[in-house]
Protein backbone atom coordinates (compact mmCIF):
# COMPACT_ATOMS: atom_id res chain seq x y z
CA UNK A 1 0.00 0.00 0.00
CA UNK A 2 1.22 3.49 -0.86
CA UNK A 3 2.16 5.96 1.87
CA UNK A 4 -0.80 7.73 3.46
CA UNK A 5 -1.66 11.01 1.82
CA UNK A 6 -4.32 11.80 4.42
CA UNK A 7 -3.63 11.16 8.09
CA UNK A 8 -6.31 11.97 10.63
CA UNK A 9 -5.43 11.65 14.30
CA UNK A 10 -8.02 11.90 17.07
CA UNK A 11 -9.93 14.40 14.93
CA UNK A 12 -12.87 15.95 16.77
CA UNK A 13 -15.29 18.61 15.66
CA UNK A 14 -17.76 20.16 18.07
CA UNK A 15 -20.31 22.76 16.96
CA UNK A 16 -21.59 25.17 19.58
CA UNK A 17 -25.20 26.30 19.16
CA UNK A 18 -25.58 28.73 22.01
CA UNK A 19 -25.04 26.71 25.16
CA UNK A 20 -25.65 23.42 23.39
CA UNK A 21 -22.64 21.59 21.96
CA UNK A 22 -23.07 19.12 19.15
CA UNK A 23 -20.29 16.62 18.57
CA UNK A 24 -20.14 16.18 14.80
CA UNK A 25 -16.97 14.08 14.79
CA UNK A 26 -15.56 12.20 17.73
CA UNK A 27 -11.86 11.30 17.78
CA UNK A 28 -11.59 10.08 14.20
CA UNK A 29 -8.34 8.39 13.27
CA UNK A 30 -8.02 7.43 9.64
CA UNK A 31 -5.34 7.00 6.99
CA UNK A 32 -5.97 7.27 3.26
CA UNK A 33 -3.22 6.21 0.94
CA UNK A 34 -2.18 8.04 -2.20
CA UNK A 35 -4.10 6.72 -5.23
CA UNK A 36 -7.02 5.42 -3.18
CA UNK A 37 -10.68 5.98 -4.02
CA UNK A 38 -12.47 6.13 -0.68
CA UNK A 39 -16.21 6.46 -0.17
CA UNK A 40 -17.38 8.00 3.10
CA UNK A 41 -20.81 6.61 3.85
CA UNK A 42 -23.28 7.17 6.56
CA UNK A 43 -26.76 8.41 7.32
CA UNK A 44 -27.66 12.07 7.39
CA UNK A 45 -25.95 13.82 10.32
CA UNK A 46 -23.30 11.15 10.68
CA UNK A 47 -20.50 13.68 10.16
CA UNK A 48 -19.30 12.53 6.72
CA UNK A 49 -19.52 15.99 5.12
CA UNK A 50 -17.87 17.55 8.18
CA UNK A 51 -15.01 15.10 7.84
CA UNK A 52 -14.69 15.97 4.16
CA UNK A 53 -14.64 19.71 4.98
CA UNK A 54 -11.87 19.21 7.55
CA UNK A 55 -9.76 17.22 5.09
CA UNK A 56 -10.32 19.90 2.43
CA UNK A 57 -9.31 22.67 4.82
CA UNK A 58 -12.57 24.62 4.59
CA UNK A 59 -13.34 23.97 8.25
CA UNK A 60 -11.13 23.59 11.29
CA UNK A 61 -11.08 20.75 13.80
CA UNK A 62 -11.85 21.41 17.45
CA UNK A 63 -9.09 19.03 18.49
CA UNK A 64 -6.88 16.47 16.81
CA UNK A 65 -4.70 16.67 13.75
CA UNK A 66 -5.40 16.52 10.04
CA UNK A 67 -2.36 15.96 7.82
CA UNK A 68 -2.85 16.09 4.06
CA UNK A 69 0.17 15.64 1.80
CA UNK A 70 2.55 16.31 4.68
CA UNK A 71 0.77 19.52 5.67
CA UNK A 72 -0.88 20.02 9.05
CA UNK A 73 -4.03 21.62 7.68
CA UNK A 74 -5.21 22.86 11.06
CA UNK A 75 -2.01 24.85 11.57
CA UNK A 76 -2.39 26.99 8.43
CA UNK A 77 -3.74 30.54 8.45
CA UNK A 78 -6.78 31.39 6.34
CA UNK A 79 -4.62 32.84 3.56
CA UNK A 80 -2.24 29.86 3.65
CA UNK A 81 -5.23 27.54 3.58
CA UNK A 82 -6.64 29.28 0.50
CA UNK A 83 -3.32 28.95 -1.33
CA UNK A 84 -2.98 25.36 -0.17
CA UNK A 85 -6.46 24.50 -1.47
CA UNK A 86 -5.58 25.92 -4.90
CA UNK A 87 -2.58 23.62 -5.05
CA UNK A 88 -3.78 20.48 -3.30
CA UNK A 89 -7.54 20.19 -3.37
CA UNK A 90 -10.02 19.73 -6.18
CA UNK A 91 -13.65 20.15 -5.16
CA UNK A 92 -16.74 18.55 -6.65
CA UNK A 93 -20.01 19.65 -5.05
CA UNK A 94 -23.42 18.03 -5.01
CA UNK A 95 -25.04 21.07 -6.65
CA UNK A 96 -22.21 21.55 -9.18
CA UNK A 97 -21.73 25.20 -8.08
CA UNK A 98 -20.68 26.48 -11.45
CA UNK A 99 -20.70 30.25 -11.92
CA UNK A 100 -23.80 30.83 -14.06
CA UNK A 101 -22.43 33.81 -16.00
CA UNK A 102 -19.29 31.98 -17.10
CA UNK A 103 -19.02 29.43 -19.90
CA UNK A 104 -17.86 25.88 -19.25
CA UNK A 105 -14.38 26.92 -20.39
CA UNK A 106 -14.29 29.95 -18.09
CA UNK A 107 -15.60 27.98 -15.12
CA UNK A 108 -12.80 25.49 -15.53
CA UNK A 109 -10.30 28.30 -16.02
CA UNK A 110 -11.33 30.01 -12.77
CA UNK A 111 -8.89 28.22 -10.41
CA UNK A 112 -6.07 28.83 -12.90
CA UNK A 113 -6.50 32.60 -12.51
CA UNK A 114 -4.84 32.11 -9.14
CA UNK A 115 -1.73 30.63 -10.74
CA UNK A 116 1.11 32.18 -12.68
CA UNK A 117 0.23 30.37 -15.91
CA UNK A 118 0.14 32.41 -19.10
CA UNK A 119 -3.18 32.73 -21.00
CA UNK A 120 -1.92 30.23 -23.56
CA UNK A 121 -0.94 27.70 -20.88
CA UNK A 122 -4.28 28.22 -19.16
CA UNK A 123 -6.08 27.57 -22.44
CA UNK A 124 -4.14 24.34 -22.94
CA UNK A 125 -4.86 23.11 -19.40
CA UNK A 126 -8.57 23.94 -19.63
CA UNK A 127 -8.94 22.32 -23.02
CA UNK A 128 -7.21 19.17 -21.78
CA UNK A 129 -9.41 19.00 -18.67
CA UNK A 130 -12.62 19.48 -20.65
CA UNK A 131 -11.59 16.90 -23.22
CA UNK A 132 -10.79 14.49 -20.38
CA UNK A 133 -14.40 14.73 -19.21
CA UNK A 134 -15.55 14.51 -22.85
CA UNK A 135 -16.91 18.01 -23.03
CA UNK A 136 -14.50 19.41 -25.60
CA UNK A 137 -17.46 20.37 -27.77
CA UNK A 138 -19.30 22.22 -24.99
CA UNK A 139 -16.61 24.71 -24.00
CA UNK A 140 -18.58 27.82 -24.96
CA UNK A 141 -21.81 26.71 -23.36
CA UNK A 142 -23.16 28.40 -20.26
CA UNK A 143 -24.14 26.12 -17.36
CA UNK A 144 -27.85 26.62 -18.10
CA UNK A 145 -27.25 25.21 -21.58
CA UNK A 146 -25.87 21.96 -20.16
CA UNK A 147 -27.56 18.94 -18.63
CA UNK A 148 -27.02 18.10 -14.95
CA UNK A 149 -24.55 15.37 -15.82
CA UNK A 150 -22.62 17.69 -18.13
CA UNK A 151 -22.55 20.40 -15.45
CA UNK A 152 -21.10 17.94 -12.97
CA UNK A 153 -18.48 16.89 -15.52
CA UNK A 154 -17.54 20.54 -15.97
CA UNK A 155 -17.24 20.75 -12.18
CA UNK A 156 -14.97 17.71 -12.23
CA UNK A 157 -12.86 19.33 -14.96
CA UNK A 158 -12.62 22.45 -12.80
CA UNK A 159 -11.47 20.34 -9.85
CA UNK A 160 -8.85 18.60 -11.99
CA UNK A 161 -7.44 21.52 -13.90
CA UNK A 162 -4.91 22.52 -11.26
CA UNK A 163 -3.76 18.89 -10.99
CA UNK A 164 -4.50 18.72 -7.24
CA UNK A 165 -3.18 16.10 -4.85
CA UNK A 166 -6.64 15.18 -3.68
CA UNK A 167 -10.03 15.11 -5.34
CA UNK A 168 -12.87 15.73 -2.89
CA UNK A 169 -16.44 14.99 -3.95
CA UNK A 170 -19.40 15.77 -1.72
CA UNK A 171 -22.41 13.73 -2.88
CA UNK A 172 -21.42 14.25 -6.53
CA UNK A 173 -24.39 12.24 -7.83
CA UNK A 174 -26.98 13.55 -5.39
CA UNK A 175 -28.62 15.81 -7.98
CA UNK A 176 -28.30 13.52 -10.99
CA UNK A 177 -30.47 10.92 -12.66
CA UNK A 178 -29.24 7.32 -12.64
CA UNK A 179 -27.66 7.48 -16.08
CA UNK A 180 -25.75 10.72 -15.42
CA UNK A 181 -24.76 9.46 -11.97
CA UNK A 182 -23.20 6.37 -13.50
CA UNK A 183 -21.33 8.52 -16.03
CA UNK A 184 -19.92 10.75 -13.29
CA UNK A 185 -18.96 7.86 -11.03
CA UNK A 186 -17.31 6.06 -13.92
CA UNK A 187 -15.36 9.22 -14.67
CA UNK A 188 -14.20 9.54 -11.04
CA UNK A 189 -13.24 5.87 -11.08
CA UNK A 190 -11.22 6.22 -14.27
CA UNK A 191 -9.48 9.32 -12.91
CA UNK A 192 -8.49 7.22 -9.91
CA UNK A 193 -7.47 4.12 -11.82
CA UNK A 194 -5.90 5.62 -14.93
CA UNK A 195 -4.43 8.83 -13.58
CA UNK A 196 -3.79 7.72 -10.04
CA UNK A 197 -5.83 10.50 -8.49
CA UNK A 198 -6.69 10.12 -4.84
CA UNK A 199 -10.45 10.54 -4.52
CA UNK A 200 -12.52 10.93 -1.38
CA UNK A 201 -16.24 10.86 -2.00
CA UNK A 202 -19.09 11.37 0.41
CA UNK A 203 -22.23 9.44 -0.48
CA UNK A 204 -25.18 7.77 1.17
CA UNK A 205 -25.84 5.64 -1.91
CA UNK A 206 -24.36 2.12 -1.71
CA UNK A 207 -24.39 1.91 -5.53
CA UNK A 208 -22.19 4.98 -5.74
CA UNK A 209 -19.93 3.66 -2.99
CA UNK A 210 -19.44 0.49 -5.03
CA UNK A 211 -17.35 2.48 -7.49
CA UNK A 212 -14.83 3.27 -4.73
CA UNK A 213 -11.99 1.00 -3.75
CA UNK A 214 -12.74 1.32 -0.05
CA UNK A 215 -15.76 2.39 1.93
CA UNK A 216 -15.55 4.02 5.35
CA UNK A 217 -18.74 4.11 7.39
CA UNK A 218 -19.57 6.85 9.82
CA UNK A 219 -22.39 7.02 12.32
CA UNK A 220 -23.01 9.69 14.94
CA UNK A 221 -19.60 11.14 14.33
CA UNK A 222 -17.67 7.93 14.80
CA UNK A 223 -16.07 5.42 12.43
CA UNK A 224 -17.91 2.13 12.42
CA UNK A 225 -15.06 0.06 11.03
CA UNK A 226 -12.33 1.63 13.13
CA UNK A 227 -9.22 2.96 11.40
CA UNK A 228 -10.20 1.86 7.92
Amino acid at each position, binding site marked *: MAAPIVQLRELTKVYAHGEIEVVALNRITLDIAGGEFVALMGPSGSGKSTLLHLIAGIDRPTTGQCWVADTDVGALTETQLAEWRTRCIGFV*FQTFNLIPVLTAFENVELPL*LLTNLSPRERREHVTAALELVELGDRMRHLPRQLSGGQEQRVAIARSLVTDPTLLIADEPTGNLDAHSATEVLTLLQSLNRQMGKTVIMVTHDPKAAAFAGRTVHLEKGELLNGNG
Partner: protein
Amino acid sequence: MTIPGFIIRNALRNKRRLTLTVLSVAVSLFLLTVLLTALRLIVNPPTTDQSALRIVVRHRVSLANVLPEKYQYRIERMPGVQYCSKFTWFGGIYRDQASSNFAQFAVDPAVFFKIFPEAVVDPRQQEAFSKDRSACIVGVKLMERFGWKLGDRLVLKAGVWPCDADLTIRAVYHSSQIEETDLFFRHDYFDELMGQRGVVGTFWIKAAQAEDIPGLITRIDAAFRNTDAETKTETERAFQLGFISMIGNVRMFIGSICTVIVFTMLLVTASTMAMAIRERLREISVLKALGFTGRMIFSLILAESCGLSLAGGFLGVFGAKLLAETLDIYKLSHGFLPMFPMTADILAVGMLVALLLGIVSSLAPAYASLKTSVVTGLTELD
Protein backbone atom coordinates in the same frame (compact mmCIF):
# COMPACT_ATOMS: atom_id res chain seq x y z
CA MET B 1 -10.75 35.18 -19.12
CA THR B 2 -9.14 37.69 -16.81
CA ILE B 3 -9.99 38.89 -13.31
CA PRO B 4 -11.35 42.22 -14.66
CA GLY B 5 -13.38 40.21 -17.18
CA PHE B 6 -14.76 38.11 -14.34
CA ILE B 7 -15.73 41.26 -12.41
CA ILE B 8 -17.50 42.67 -15.47
CA ARG B 9 -19.40 39.41 -16.01
CA ASN B 10 -20.55 39.48 -12.40
CA ALA B 11 -21.62 43.10 -12.65
CA LEU B 12 -23.59 42.43 -15.83
CA ARG B 13 -25.46 39.39 -14.57
CA ASN B 14 -28.60 41.34 -13.59
CA LYS B 15 -28.82 43.91 -16.35
CA ARG B 16 -32.03 45.55 -15.22
CA ARG B 17 -30.75 46.13 -11.71
CA LEU B 18 -27.40 47.27 -13.04
CA THR B 19 -29.05 49.75 -15.41
CA LEU B 20 -31.31 51.16 -12.72
CA THR B 21 -28.49 51.49 -10.23
CA VAL B 22 -26.11 53.10 -12.71
CA LEU B 23 -28.86 55.49 -13.79
CA SER B 24 -29.71 56.41 -10.22
CA VAL B 25 -26.05 57.16 -9.51
CA ALA B 26 -25.80 59.04 -12.82
CA VAL B 27 -28.84 61.21 -12.13
CA SER B 28 -27.69 61.90 -8.58
CA LEU B 29 -24.18 62.84 -9.68
CA PHE B 30 -25.60 64.92 -12.51
CA LEU B 31 -27.57 66.87 -9.91
CA LEU B 32 -24.60 67.03 -7.57
CA THR B 33 -22.22 68.48 -10.16
CA VAL B 34 -24.84 70.95 -11.39
CA LEU B 35 -25.51 72.08 -7.83
CA LEU B 36 -21.79 72.30 -7.04
CA THR B 37 -21.27 74.43 -10.14
CA ALA B 38 -24.19 76.67 -9.23
CA LEU B 39 -22.92 76.92 -5.66
CA ARG B 40 -19.45 77.87 -6.86
CA LEU B 41 -20.87 80.48 -9.20
CA ILE B 42 -22.84 81.97 -6.35
CA VAL B 43 -20.38 81.87 -3.48
CA ASN B 44 -17.19 82.03 -5.46
CA PRO B 45 -17.80 84.00 -8.64
CA PRO B 46 -15.13 83.79 -11.31
CA THR B 47 -12.44 86.43 -11.07
CA THR B 48 -10.07 87.88 -13.65
CA ASP B 49 -6.81 89.79 -13.41
CA GLN B 50 -8.81 92.94 -13.96
CA SER B 51 -11.48 92.15 -11.37
CA ALA B 52 -8.73 91.83 -8.77
CA LEU B 53 -7.98 95.52 -9.36
CA ARG B 54 -11.54 96.74 -8.96
CA ILE B 55 -13.07 98.07 -5.78
CA VAL B 56 -16.57 99.24 -5.04
CA VAL B 57 -17.68 102.15 -2.89
CA ARG B 58 -21.22 102.06 -1.52
CA HIS B 59 -23.23 103.60 1.27
CA ARG B 60 -22.20 102.21 4.61
CA VAL B 61 -25.77 101.50 5.66
CA SER B 62 -26.94 99.52 2.64
CA LEU B 63 -27.03 99.34 -1.12
CA ALA B 64 -30.45 100.96 -1.03
CA ASN B 65 -28.91 104.21 0.24
CA VAL B 66 -27.32 106.52 -2.29
CA LEU B 67 -24.07 108.47 -2.31
CA PRO B 68 -23.58 112.08 -3.39
CA GLU B 69 -22.18 112.47 -6.90
CA LYS B 70 -19.58 114.90 -5.59
CA TYR B 71 -17.65 112.08 -3.90
CA GLN B 72 -16.32 111.12 -7.32
CA TYR B 73 -14.14 114.23 -7.53
CA ARG B 74 -12.41 113.41 -4.22
CA ILE B 75 -12.04 109.73 -4.95
CA GLU B 76 -10.46 110.35 -8.37
CA ARG B 77 -7.73 112.38 -6.77
CA MET B 78 -6.73 109.79 -4.20
CA PRO B 79 -3.36 108.13 -4.78
CA GLY B 80 -3.73 104.64 -6.28
CA VAL B 81 -7.00 105.37 -8.09
CA GLN B 82 -6.60 104.90 -11.82
CA TYR B 83 -10.21 105.28 -12.93
CA CYS B 84 -13.51 105.90 -11.16
CA SER B 85 -17.01 105.54 -12.61
CA LYS B 86 -20.44 106.20 -11.24
CA PHE B 87 -22.31 102.91 -11.25
CA THR B 88 -26.00 103.03 -10.44
CA TRP B 89 -28.35 100.10 -10.60
CA PHE B 90 -31.42 101.19 -12.54
CA GLY B 91 -33.73 98.22 -11.98
CA GLY B 92 -36.19 99.25 -14.69
CA ILE B 93 -38.97 97.08 -16.06
CA TYR B 94 -38.69 95.90 -19.65
CA ARG B 95 -42.05 94.74 -21.03
CA ASP B 96 -43.05 92.87 -17.85
CA GLN B 97 -41.58 91.76 -14.57
CA ALA B 98 -40.56 88.33 -15.85
CA SER B 99 -38.50 89.81 -18.69
CA SER B 100 -36.74 92.28 -16.45
CA ASN B 101 -34.35 89.97 -14.63
CA PHE B 102 -31.27 91.44 -16.28
CA ALA B 103 -29.00 93.99 -14.75
CA GLN B 104 -29.16 97.59 -15.97
CA PHE B 105 -26.61 100.13 -14.82
CA ALA B 106 -25.94 103.77 -15.47
CA VAL B 107 -22.18 104.34 -15.90
CA ASP B 108 -19.68 106.96 -17.02
CA PRO B 109 -19.05 106.18 -20.71
CA ALA B 110 -15.60 107.80 -20.70
CA VAL B 111 -14.07 105.41 -18.18
CA PHE B 112 -16.40 102.42 -18.18
CA PHE B 113 -14.39 100.50 -20.78
CA LYS B 114 -11.17 101.27 -18.95
CA ILE B 115 -12.51 99.82 -15.73
CA PHE B 116 -13.94 96.82 -17.55
CA PRO B 117 -11.44 96.06 -20.31
CA GLU B 118 -12.79 92.48 -20.40
CA ALA B 119 -15.82 93.88 -22.28
CA VAL B 120 -14.80 93.82 -25.92
CA VAL B 121 -16.58 96.38 -28.10
CA ASP B 122 -16.20 97.46 -31.69
CA PRO B 123 -14.45 100.88 -31.57
CA ARG B 124 -17.06 102.43 -33.88
CA GLN B 125 -19.86 101.20 -31.64
CA GLN B 126 -17.96 102.48 -28.62
CA GLU B 127 -17.75 105.87 -30.25
CA ALA B 128 -21.47 105.78 -31.05
CA PHE B 129 -22.17 104.95 -27.41
CA SER B 130 -20.18 107.96 -26.23
CA LYS B 131 -21.85 110.36 -28.68
CA ASP B 132 -25.51 109.51 -28.10
CA ARG B 133 -26.81 110.60 -24.70
CA SER B 134 -29.57 107.96 -24.64
CA ALA B 135 -27.33 105.18 -25.96
CA CYS B 136 -26.88 101.89 -24.27
CA ILE B 137 -24.45 99.00 -24.62
CA VAL B 138 -25.77 95.47 -24.26
CA GLY B 139 -24.14 92.11 -23.68
CA VAL B 140 -24.34 89.76 -26.64
CA LYS B 141 -26.30 87.09 -24.75
CA LEU B 142 -28.91 89.62 -23.73
CA MET B 143 -29.17 90.75 -27.35
CA GLU B 144 -29.78 87.16 -28.40
CA ARG B 145 -32.26 86.56 -25.61
CA PHE B 146 -34.58 89.35 -26.75
CA GLY B 147 -33.62 89.30 -30.43
CA TRP B 148 -32.41 92.90 -30.31
CA LYS B 149 -30.36 94.57 -33.06
CA LEU B 150 -28.13 97.59 -33.09
CA GLY B 151 -30.26 100.73 -33.39
CA ASP B 152 -33.28 99.16 -31.64
CA ARG B 153 -35.04 101.33 -29.12
CA LEU B 154 -36.17 99.99 -25.80
CA VAL B 155 -37.89 101.55 -22.84
CA LEU B 156 -37.08 100.62 -19.29
CA LYS B 157 -40.03 101.68 -17.21
CA ALA B 158 -39.65 103.08 -13.73
CA GLY B 159 -38.77 100.39 -11.23
CA VAL B 160 -36.41 101.48 -8.51
CA TRP B 161 -36.19 105.09 -9.70
CA PRO B 162 -39.17 107.30 -10.58
CA CYS B 163 -38.31 107.69 -14.25
CA ASP B 164 -38.45 105.77 -17.55
CA ALA B 165 -35.30 105.31 -19.60
CA ASP B 166 -35.82 105.50 -23.35
CA LEU B 167 -32.67 103.91 -24.76
CA THR B 168 -31.17 103.13 -28.15
CA ILE B 169 -28.82 100.18 -28.55
CA ARG B 170 -25.58 101.60 -29.96
CA ALA B 171 -23.07 98.95 -28.97
CA VAL B 172 -22.76 95.27 -28.16
CA TYR B 173 -20.06 93.86 -25.93
CA HIS B 174 -18.59 90.37 -25.92
CA SER B 175 -16.54 88.80 -23.18
CA SER B 176 -15.21 85.44 -22.20
CA GLN B 177 -14.57 86.65 -18.66
CA ILE B 178 -17.52 88.69 -17.52
CA GLU B 179 -21.22 88.13 -17.95
CA GLU B 180 -22.57 89.02 -21.37
CA THR B 181 -26.02 89.62 -20.00
CA ASP B 182 -25.98 93.19 -18.69
CA LEU B 183 -27.09 96.52 -20.07
CA PHE B 184 -25.22 99.79 -19.48
CA PHE B 185 -26.34 103.28 -20.31
CA ARG B 186 -24.92 106.71 -19.67
CA HIS B 187 -25.04 108.18 -16.19
CA ASP B 188 -25.45 111.71 -17.51
CA TYR B 189 -28.69 110.56 -19.13
CA PHE B 190 -29.77 109.03 -15.82
CA ASP B 191 -28.94 112.32 -14.07
CA GLU B 192 -31.02 114.17 -16.62
CA LEU B 193 -33.97 111.80 -16.07
CA MET B 194 -33.65 112.25 -12.32
CA GLY B 195 -33.61 116.06 -12.56
CA GLN B 196 -29.91 116.45 -11.72
CA ARG B 197 -30.31 115.30 -8.15
CA GLY B 198 -26.69 114.22 -8.07
CA VAL B 199 -27.19 110.75 -6.60
CA VAL B 200 -25.13 107.67 -7.29
CA GLY B 201 -25.67 104.04 -6.29
CA THR B 202 -22.02 103.02 -6.16
CA PHE B 203 -18.65 104.10 -7.45
CA TRP B 204 -16.50 101.50 -9.18
CA ILE B 205 -12.80 102.12 -9.09
CA LYS B 206 -9.90 100.57 -10.88
CA ALA B 207 -6.77 100.68 -8.76
CA ALA B 208 -3.40 101.25 -10.38
CA GLN B 209 -2.05 98.08 -8.82
CA ALA B 210 -3.28 95.38 -6.45
CA GLU B 211 -0.92 96.50 -3.67
CA ASP B 212 -2.71 99.84 -3.52
CA ILE B 213 -6.08 98.32 -2.74
CA PRO B 214 -5.92 97.83 1.08
CA GLY B 215 -4.67 101.37 1.62
CA LEU B 216 -7.17 102.78 -0.83
CA ILE B 217 -10.08 101.11 0.92
CA THR B 218 -8.95 102.60 4.24
CA ARG B 219 -8.41 106.06 2.77
CA ILE B 220 -11.77 106.24 1.01
CA ASP B 221 -13.79 105.19 4.04
CA ALA B 222 -11.77 107.50 6.26
CA ALA B 223 -12.34 110.42 3.90
CA PHE B 224 -16.11 110.17 4.21
CA ARG B 225 -16.35 109.26 7.88
CA ASN B 226 -18.70 111.44 9.93
CA THR B 227 -20.52 112.64 6.82
CA ASP B 228 -24.20 112.21 5.99
CA ALA B 229 -23.29 109.37 3.66
CA GLU B 230 -20.50 107.29 5.13
CA THR B 231 -19.03 104.75 2.75
CA LYS B 232 -18.17 101.10 2.78
CA THR B 233 -15.42 100.26 0.34
CA GLU B 234 -14.59 96.69 -0.58
CA THR B 235 -13.10 94.63 -3.33
CA GLU B 236 -15.29 93.52 -6.21
CA ARG B 237 -15.23 89.98 -4.90
CA ALA B 238 -16.23 90.97 -1.36
CA PHE B 239 -18.97 93.15 -2.82
CA GLN B 240 -20.36 90.24 -4.87
CA LEU B 241 -20.28 87.89 -1.89
CA GLY B 242 -22.02 90.48 0.27
CA PHE B 243 -24.65 90.83 -2.41
CA ILE B 244 -25.19 87.07 -2.45
CA SER B 245 -25.48 86.89 1.33
CA MET B 246 -28.55 89.10 1.11
CA ILE B 247 -30.54 86.20 -0.36
CA GLY B 248 -29.81 84.01 2.66
CA ASN B 249 -27.41 81.23 3.48
CA VAL B 250 -27.23 79.79 -0.02
CA ARG B 251 -24.13 77.79 0.75
CA MET B 252 -25.87 75.94 3.56
CA PHE B 253 -29.02 75.43 1.52
CA ILE B 254 -27.29 73.97 -1.52
CA GLY B 255 -24.79 72.14 0.69
CA SER B 256 -27.69 70.43 2.49
CA ILE B 257 -29.21 69.33 -0.81
CA CYS B 258 -25.82 67.95 -1.93
CA THR B 259 -25.48 66.02 1.33
CA VAL B 260 -28.94 64.52 0.93
CA ILE B 261 -28.13 63.51 -2.66
CA VAL B 262 -24.88 61.82 -1.65
CA PHE B 263 -26.52 60.06 1.28
CA THR B 264 -29.39 58.83 -0.90
CA MET B 265 -26.93 57.57 -3.49
CA LEU B 266 -25.04 55.75 -0.76
CA LEU B 267 -28.22 53.98 0.36
CA VAL B 268 -29.11 53.00 -3.21
CA THR B 269 -25.71 51.59 -4.13
CA ALA B 270 -25.16 49.98 -0.73
CA SER B 271 -28.53 48.29 -1.02
CA THR B 272 -27.77 47.09 -4.56
CA MET B 273 -24.38 45.74 -3.57
CA ALA B 274 -25.82 44.06 -0.47
CA MET B 275 -28.46 42.33 -2.60
CA ALA B 276 -25.97 41.38 -5.29
CA ILE B 277 -23.54 39.87 -2.80
CA ARG B 278 -26.25 38.18 -0.78
CA GLU B 279 -27.43 36.42 -3.94
CA ARG B 280 -23.88 35.31 -4.62
CA LEU B 281 -22.93 34.17 -1.14
CA ARG B 282 -22.79 30.58 -2.30
CA GLU B 283 -20.65 31.43 -5.31
CA ILE B 284 -18.31 33.43 -3.09
CA SER B 285 -17.97 30.38 -0.86
CA VAL B 286 -17.18 28.29 -3.94
CA LEU B 287 -14.50 30.79 -4.92
CA LYS B 288 -13.03 30.54 -1.43
CA ALA B 289 -13.10 26.76 -1.66
CA LEU B 290 -11.27 27.00 -5.00
CA GLY B 291 -8.53 29.01 -3.32
CA PHE B 292 -9.52 32.66 -3.60
CA THR B 293 -8.27 34.43 -0.47
CA GLY B 294 -10.33 36.83 1.61
CA ARG B 295 -8.35 39.75 0.20
CA MET B 296 -9.13 38.64 -3.36
CA ILE B 297 -12.84 38.29 -2.62
CA PHE B 298 -12.82 41.73 -1.00
CA SER B 299 -11.06 43.17 -4.04
CA LEU B 300 -13.60 41.59 -6.41
CA ILE B 301 -16.52 43.08 -4.49
CA LEU B 302 -14.79 46.43 -4.12
CA ALA B 303 -13.93 46.58 -7.81
CA GLU B 304 -17.46 45.67 -8.86
CA SER B 305 -18.98 48.27 -6.56
CA CYS B 306 -16.52 50.96 -7.63
CA GLY B 307 -16.97 50.06 -11.28
CA LEU B 308 -20.71 50.38 -10.95
CA SER B 309 -20.63 53.73 -9.19
CA LEU B 310 -17.85 55.08 -11.44
CA ALA B 311 -19.88 54.12 -14.51
CA GLY B 312 -22.84 56.02 -13.06
CA GLY B 313 -20.53 58.84 -12.06
CA PHE B 314 -19.05 59.08 -15.54
CA LEU B 315 -22.49 59.20 -17.13
CA GLY B 316 -23.78 61.79 -14.67
CA VAL B 317 -20.73 64.03 -14.42
CA PHE B 318 -19.76 64.10 -18.07
CA GLY B 319 -23.41 64.12 -19.12
CA ALA B 320 -23.80 67.28 -17.08
CA LYS B 321 -20.71 68.77 -18.70
CA LEU B 322 -21.93 67.86 -22.16
CA LEU B 323 -25.30 69.43 -21.50
CA ALA B 324 -23.71 72.53 -19.98
CA GLU B 325 -21.63 72.95 -23.11
CA THR B 326 -24.33 72.23 -25.67
CA LEU B 327 -27.36 73.87 -24.09
CA ASP B 328 -27.86 77.61 -23.72
CA ILE B 329 -28.06 77.67 -19.94
CA TYR B 330 -28.61 81.42 -19.96
CA LYS B 331 -31.77 81.07 -22.02
CA LEU B 332 -32.93 77.95 -20.21
CA SER B 333 -32.55 79.62 -16.82
CA HIS B 334 -34.33 82.74 -18.12
CA GLY B 335 -31.30 84.84 -17.47
CA PHE B 336 -30.65 83.59 -13.93
CA LEU B 337 -27.40 81.82 -14.84
CA PRO B 338 -25.37 83.88 -17.31
CA MET B 339 -22.66 81.23 -17.56
CA PHE B 340 -22.23 77.70 -16.32
CA PRO B 341 -18.57 76.69 -16.36
CA MET B 342 -18.29 73.06 -15.29
CA THR B 343 -14.60 73.05 -14.54
CA ALA B 344 -12.17 70.17 -14.16
CA ASP B 345 -12.11 70.46 -10.37
CA ILE B 346 -15.88 70.02 -10.15
CA LEU B 347 -15.75 67.06 -12.53
CA ALA B 348 -13.00 65.59 -10.37
CA VAL B 349 -15.07 66.10 -7.22
CA GLY B 350 -18.01 64.34 -8.90
CA MET B 351 -15.87 61.35 -9.87
CA LEU B 352 -14.26 61.27 -6.43
CA VAL B 353 -17.70 61.16 -4.81
CA ALA B 354 -18.58 58.28 -7.15
CA LEU B 355 -15.41 56.43 -6.17
CA LEU B 356 -15.96 56.97 -2.44
CA LEU B 357 -19.54 55.84 -2.90
CA GLY B 358 -18.33 52.63 -4.50
CA ILE B 359 -15.86 52.00 -1.70
CA VAL B 360 -18.23 52.76 1.18
CA SER B 361 -21.17 50.83 -0.27
CA SER B 362 -19.03 47.73 -0.77
CA LEU B 363 -17.66 47.62 2.77
CA ALA B 364 -20.65 46.04 4.53
CA PRO B 365 -21.36 43.29 1.95
CA ALA B 366 -17.65 42.57 1.54
CA TYR B 367 -17.22 42.26 5.31
CA ALA B 368 -20.30 40.03 5.56
CA SER B 369 -19.05 37.75 2.81
CA LEU B 370 -15.62 37.51 4.41
CA LYS B 371 -17.10 36.67 7.80
CA THR B 372 -19.20 33.87 6.32
CA SER B 373 -17.29 30.62 6.46
CA VAL B 374 -17.00 28.47 3.36
CA VAL B 375 -19.06 25.71 4.96
CA THR B 376 -21.83 28.10 6.02
CA GLY B 377 -21.91 29.69 2.59
CA LEU B 378 -22.09 26.32 0.85
CA THR B 379 -24.78 24.87 3.06
CA GLU B 380 -26.86 27.85 4.13
CA LEU B 381 -28.74 28.23 0.87
CA ASP B 382 -29.13 24.55 0.07
